[in-house]
Structure formats: C-alpha cells, structure tokens
C-alpha cells in the first residue's frame, strides 16, 4: 500500500452472492411479524481484492457474512462459488470443501479459541479434518502457519494456551487457523475492533500481506469507516439491512453520495476538521415489518415524498460507484 496507489486490476471472481435476504419470524406460532435483517444484498468477492462492508450495529453486516459462510440459510438469494449456486448444489448444509474454502474470522479473539487447548491443537485440528497434511508433516505445517502470521519463534507459541497470548496474538492465531485449510475467501467480521489501538494496524497489515501473497478474496466487516478505507479496495455502505452505496474506497469517501454515508462521515471524530454538527438525528428504524420506501427516509435531511414510497434502484454516480437514493434519479436536483 504505497502512495499513490493505482487501483490494482480486479482479480478473478472467487465468490458471488446475489440478492441475499434474511428474515426472522418473531412472536408466537401464528404471528406473521418478521424481522427483515437483510434485504437484497449482493457482493462480488475477487481474488486479491478486499470488499469492506460498513454500517452501524443492526445494519446487517454480520448477517451477510454468516449467510455467505453458510452458518445459516438465507430466506432468498444465491451464492455462486466455483461456477455453481451452492445453495442449490449442496442445499442442506455446506460441503467440507466449501467450509474449507470460505473461512470466517470473528470479532472476539478471546471467545473464538478454546481455553483448554494449546495453539498447536487449534491449528492441527483443521489440518487433520480437511486432510491437508498427514503425520510428521503436521508439526512443520503448524510452524509454517505461525511464522506466516508473525508469531515467531513458532514453537514458543505452539505450546502455549490462549490465555498466555495477548489479544493481537490470539487474533493472529485465528488467522493462522483460517489459513490452515488454504481458503480462497476470508470473511473477517470486525477482526480488530476488540484489539488495543496500537496493535490494530499490525493485524490489518497482516491481512493485506496475506491478500497479496495468497491472492485471498476478503470481505472485511467493520463499523469503522476509516479502517474500511485503509484496507478496502471497495466499500459497501449498509443501512437497516440494505446496501445503500458502493464504490471504490478512496472515491466513495472523497465523494460520498448517499445522505447516510455523509452522516456517517460527519460523525467520525476528526481533530483536524473544524467542529461540525451532525446533519441528522434519530436512530436506525425498527427492522420489524418495515414500511415501504427508503429505510433512511425518517432521518434524511433531504427527504422527499417519493422516498417514503419506493426504494430507488442503484443509480450510477461514478466509475463502479452507485447509490440507492432518489436525489440522484434523472431529473432530481442534487441538493445535498
């Protein structure tokens, strides 16, 4: 990542999620109420490319990752991997191959490792289950994995238990475990938000290095729009279970189109800028049986009548940059 960085040519598509939706029924047996956790979300993950998914809590970021990892089935949508819709070709549960190829990193490095097992055990298990190496090669492979994620000397770390490691080291173990099965896609769900500030960059730089060395395709999920820009080639902004804007990361932050993206950016603490007020108030609307129209309409400073009735389709506002906002419909005056 050296400045000025020309956009790398997009690598081959590794995984494509199309129009994913997830609804959870709530209330009693005969209740028809539903939580619309995710509506019509599509992402294309390419090798050597990072898509950052940004949004507040409840915006559907983690649900997107969980659906792609097939930890739960979507209500609607398709997931293309290796040329076929895996929801159709392996409908009841994901195949061992898919589970190996699509790995997930979780937010909490304290909860995702088992306290009663050594690091060696954590890395050995996926190697055995996925039959990547056998017998005496395992130890070498574990050492190699630990060295790859910067835990040197590897033997010192292999024999340790999770509680003997710092948060950053534990998150590196989580990456090593994901790499053990040689994935093509890594879904990283807030991998740095529980780490101390001074070690966050180290983990992000490790992600970057693995992307370049192994051509990994990343989905990076975060509420921190600055880190989304730092690691992401592309940013997708989510609000109330929907994608509201997407584009190349530097361009999207420099010229945000959606009023929600603008609000999010205005709220980021920035000592360099003069103090600005936030431009909208209120909170994310309830996701239970949401009304029609744009989910941001209730908070939007530029709301129009049409916003409460229909959600606009994606409108192109720049190269690979689109927004779902009526302000950008042909004929509408861009006022914000």
């Amino acid at each position, binding site marked *: *990542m*050296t*400045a*000025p*960085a020309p956009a790398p040519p997009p690598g081959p598509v590794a995984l494509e999620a199309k129009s994913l939706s997830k609804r959870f029924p709530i209330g009693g047996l005969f209740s028809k109420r539903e939580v619309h956790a995710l509506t019509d979300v599509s992402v294309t993950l390419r090798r050597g490319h990072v898509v950052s998914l940004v949004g*507040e*809590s409840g915006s559907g970021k983690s649900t997107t990752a969980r659906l792609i990892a097939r930890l739960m089935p979507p209500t609607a949508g398709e997931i293309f991997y290796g040329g076929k819709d895996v929801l159709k070709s392996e409908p009841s549960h994901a195949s061992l191959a898919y589970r190996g190829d699509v790995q997930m990193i979780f937010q909490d490095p304290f909860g995702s490792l088992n306290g009663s097992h050594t690091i060696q055990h954590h890395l050995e298990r996926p190697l055995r289950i996925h039959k990547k190496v056998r017998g005496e090669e395992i130890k070498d492979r574990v050492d190699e994995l630990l060295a790859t994620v910067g835990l040197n000397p590897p033997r010192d770390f292999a024999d340790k238990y999770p509680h003997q490691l*710092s948060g*950053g*080291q534990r998150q590196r173990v989580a990456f090593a475990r994901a790499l053990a099965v040689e994935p093509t896609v890594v879904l990283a769900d807030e991998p740095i938000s529980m780490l*101390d*500030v*001074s*070690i*966050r*960059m*180290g983990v992000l*730089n490790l992600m970057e290095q693995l992307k370049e060395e192994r051509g990994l395709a990343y989905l990076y999920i975060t*509420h921190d*729009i*600055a*880190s989304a*820009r*730092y690691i992401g080639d592309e940013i997708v902004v989510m609000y109330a279970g929907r994608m509201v804007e997407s584009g190349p990361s*530097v361009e999207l*932050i*420099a010229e945000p189109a959606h009023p929600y993206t603008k*609000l*999010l*950016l*205005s*709220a*980021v*603490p*920035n*000592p360099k800028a003069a*103090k600005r*007020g*936030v431009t*909208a*108030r209120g*909170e994310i609307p309830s996701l239970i049986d949401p009304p029609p129209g744009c989910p941001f309409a209730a908070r939007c400073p530029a709301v129009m009548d049409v916003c409460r009735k229909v959600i606009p389709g994606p409108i192109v506002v720049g190269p690979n940059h689109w927004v779902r906002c009526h302000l950008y419909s042909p004929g509408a005056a861009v006022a914000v």
Partner: protein
Amino acid sequence: MVDERPAAPLLRVADLRVEYLTGAGPVKAVDGVSFEIAPGEVLGLAGESGSGKSTIAHAVMRLLHPPAVIAGGSVEFQGRDVLALSDRELEEFRWDQISMVFQSAMNSLNPVMTIGDQIVDAIRAHRPVSKNQALERAAELLKAVGIEPERLRAYPHQLSGGMRQRAVIAIALALEPPLMIMDEPTTALDVVMQKEIMQQIEELKNRLGFSILFITHDLSLLVEFSDRIAVMYAGEIVEIGPAHDIFGEPLHPYTRGLMNSFPSLDGAKTRLTGIPGSPPNMLNPPSGCRFHPRCPSVLPMHTQVRPTLREVKPGHFVACHLYREGVEA
C-alpha cells in the same frame, strides 16, 4: 465557600499508587500518577487496556475493593482529602460532588424501575425535596439530554442503547456535581450516536460549568473534546499537555505510535505501522522506561533508568529520555 482563585484545581491527584494483590505478586496498576483538573476543564485520559486509566477513575471515586488497594499518594477534591473520607461521608460525597458514567452504564439501570423513578431516587437520596419536585427535575434532566420527558415512565428495556446511555448521563447530572468522570461513555455506541451524545455533553458542560475526566482509548475523540490530555502507558502518565499540542506535535514515541494507528479519511492511502509488540504484562513490567521493548528510538540506558515527567514546552510534559535538557528527539 467559593474559592475565587482561578488557579485552584478542583481535583488534585498526587503520586497515586494502586496495586492489585494477586497470587503471583502485586500488580502496580497505577504507579505514581499526578494530575490536576481545573474548574470547567475537560481532562482526557488516553491509554490502552491495562494502562490503569479506569483504575484511576475508581480510585478517585473510592470504588476500589480488594484485591485492589491504594498503596500511596493523595486525592484532593476542593481541598478535601478524598482518601480519608469515612463511609458516611463517602455516601454524601459520591454523586453529589463527583458522578461517574461507565462504558456499560446503559446496562446498569435497574430493569424493574422506570427511568423517572431511578432519577428521582438519586435526587431524593441527597436532597430534601418532595417526590413531585424531584419528578419535575427528572423531566428537565431528560430534556437536557435529548429524551422526551414522556419517557419518564419508560422502563430501560423500552429504550435503545443510546437513549439508555443518555438516561444514565441525566442521572449523573441530577445533582449538578462539579466533576463528572466518564469512562468510555460512548464506546458501546455507533459513531452517529456517539457524536450526538458528545455534542450534548459539551453543551451541558458549557451551560453548567462542570469539569470532566474523560477516559477513552479513542485518541481522535479525546482530542476533539478535551482541553488537556494525559497519555498513560503501563500505569504511568508518559505525556500530558494541551490537547492540540499533543495532537499537533506528540512528543513521546508511544503517543506518536498511537497517532500512527488511526487511518485517515483523506489523502492518498499510506501504510500505517501502529506500534510493534504488545502492551506489557503488568505482573512483570519492563525495566527502565516501560515502553522500551516497543520503542523505535530505544538506547541502552533507557532499559535501566526510568524517565520522569519533565516540562518540554509550556504546560506540555513528557517522560522520555529523548527529551533531556537541550536534547531534542
């Protein structure tokens, strides 16, 4: 009794030492910390987990319980020795003189009491007012933090996280204490809510004139809202000074590293390195300067001698061997 001298600090913490007594030996969580807060001032306390910042807040409020013990130093509030207060005096002192908002405070509300009753309780525990007077005051307080007064009758579960955190701030303001301690008050909230709440606190502070000890790991937020900032590392203050000096020209290599850990939202993407290594194990902290194992400018003597705070620029102190008299980094 109003002290007219402008220089008299509201809170004076001197050489504070707090230890956690563990089976493996004492952990010096706070090791000789001194600072002052002036009336109406916001002092920001930055540092990572385990640096001792929350322990300081608990010591000032006298909320420490074994195995944590105050091993030395003094805490003076408006000239009173806080460490010498009896249990009875503490009951009156807390909340009336210093109130506190915790990170998880929104979960500390009583789930079976309405918001109104909880504010009324706080008021009537300290002031001889009728229930109706207290309710009126509670409605005012909710309005001040941006909640409609009708929500007095709401139970905590009926409010969002942001509203609950506002309600806790309303309770903290109930007795108009001269000092409010806020320990990661918005860390559990989304940025938009964080911005709204911090703006509201600033408005209230300007109107009511209270001081704030503001604790967070988020340096950008701290710079935006503090007058002065103290940076903690491994139980010590390593740098303290005016917020914009520390932001504009951080002196300690640790502060510089922290500044280099936040990606920017503008300009070309540049690689940030953060700080190599991990925060120290406080059971066995490094010798000499505690930052030396992670410091890019370490020299052999730094591993032996512990640096002390020295004033490098007016009001800007740093504890680092690179800044001895006449020596610039």
